[in-house]
């Protein structure tokens, strides 16, 4: 099993509903977020192009944050989801420094926190909160090993990219372009 997510940059309108949905669903402390929306403006006026991306942890298949964690608090569970065990985490910050996407943050309680692909919902057969709430339905989630999953189907149909693959992290968050 290999969970992955695809975000359609052509459909996203940058409303940030996904961010709020995540904060509510996961009780993210005020002032922090596990996902965020980036707007990239490219070109010279009047020929400007805008790309909108809802970003979060890429649940990298070759995750530097897991590699550098001294206690094993950062670990990978079935389906390739990267998680942190709060009562194993010493809050050293190594994983935060090791993530090229700055996808982690220190929780005010001391341990490190990040996107979990809403594993608690996925286990119940639901979609992650951000995917479920998106008003433009621009996100797809599922198992890449299953050729019929939403995410496999859309990735076959559309062109996609990942973020800084040259960092060697093998990110599993795809952006449809």
């Amino acid at each position, binding site marked *: 099993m290999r969970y992955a997510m695809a975000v359609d940059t052509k459909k996203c309108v940058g409303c*940030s509903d996904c961010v709020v949905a995540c904060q509510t669903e996961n009780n993210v402390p005020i*002032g922090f977020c596990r996902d965020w929306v980036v707007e990239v403006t490219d070109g010279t006026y009047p020929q400007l192009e805008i790309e909108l991306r809802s970003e979060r942890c890429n649940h990298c298949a070759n995750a530097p944050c897991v590699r550098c964690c001294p206690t094993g608090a950062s670990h990978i569970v079935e389906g390739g989801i990267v998680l942190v065990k709060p*009562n194993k985490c010493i*809050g050293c*910050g190594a994983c935060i420094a090791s993530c090229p996407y700055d996808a982690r943050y*220190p929780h005010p309680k*001391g341990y490190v926190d990040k996107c979990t692909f809403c594993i608690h919902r996925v286990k119940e057969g639901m979609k992650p909160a951000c995917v479920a709430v998106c008003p433009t339905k621009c996100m797809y989630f599922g198992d890449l090993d299953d050729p019929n999953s939403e995410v496999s189907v859309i990735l076959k149909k559309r062109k996609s990219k990942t*973020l*800084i693959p040259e960092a060697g992290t093998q990110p599993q968050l795809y952006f449809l372009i």
Partner: protein
Amino acid sequence: MNEELIISGRENLMVDPQLHIWHWPIPLYLFLGGLAAGVLFFAALYYLLGKEEQYRAAVRRVPFIAPVALVLGLAALFYDLNHKAFFWQLYTTIRIQSPMSWGAWTLLVITTASFIWCALHIREFFPRWDWKYKWLKDIEVFFNKNKKPLAWVILIFAIITGVYTGILLSAFNARPLWNTSVLGPLFLASGLSAGAASIVLASKNREERLLFTKIDLIILGTELFLIVHMFMGFLASTQVQQEAAQLFLGGPYTMVFWIFVVVLGIIIPGVLDLMELWGKHIPALIPGVLVLMGSFAFRFVFVFAGQVSRWLY
């Protein structure tokens, strides 16, 4: 134009707008670790070379810096942890791929060994020292008999500790400035030069002072070579590493790096060492303190600048 904005307003503390997860205790810890590695390396080396009597300060006295530095360094590291109550989790596992993990174990070994080494030489400072309990005396007798193996352990672990202070950073490919394999040898050299400088500062024997002035000079030269080498590597590398190098070549860290680390920390003390060797009398305090400050500044500049360097996307 190419502009990237986080429009949902991400303001994660210590991550935005620039990574700042590691504060002053981390470079302090790296400096103290490097210093301890330096003094222990020379103590073990000259003991194993049979020069214990000749170089008393190096073998017997200066190593007393090490346990103090290591304990202070570990305290600094502990202070910068965000989840302190779980500190012990570090010592429930060894994770070879995580420098922080094997570094923590290395520090445990070298700190213990440094305490034993100092206990064996405690009479340098307290000639009438007497261990109160028999078991302590037994331990002393045991390690006196096995001083050679102890010195070997210290020698090897001092090198590992010195290299570790650099590898801790160079293992992060997410921070292009740190991600260079030169950093291990470079920080080892910086630690060794701090160690040699401490011996020059503490020794009262002219021959010993001259020897360590020479050693210091060689290490400072090596450091300078490694720094040039590092920049050549950065400038010939990918765009992210070229931009990382720009932090020191016109960017915000240019002045601190070239003035405090290179000129005041390496070149001037190197020239003063050279003058001393040529027979001009230079008060040992000046190059010694400059080298220590340079080594200290080096870790600060690197830890802070590295957190600013990043991948672009």
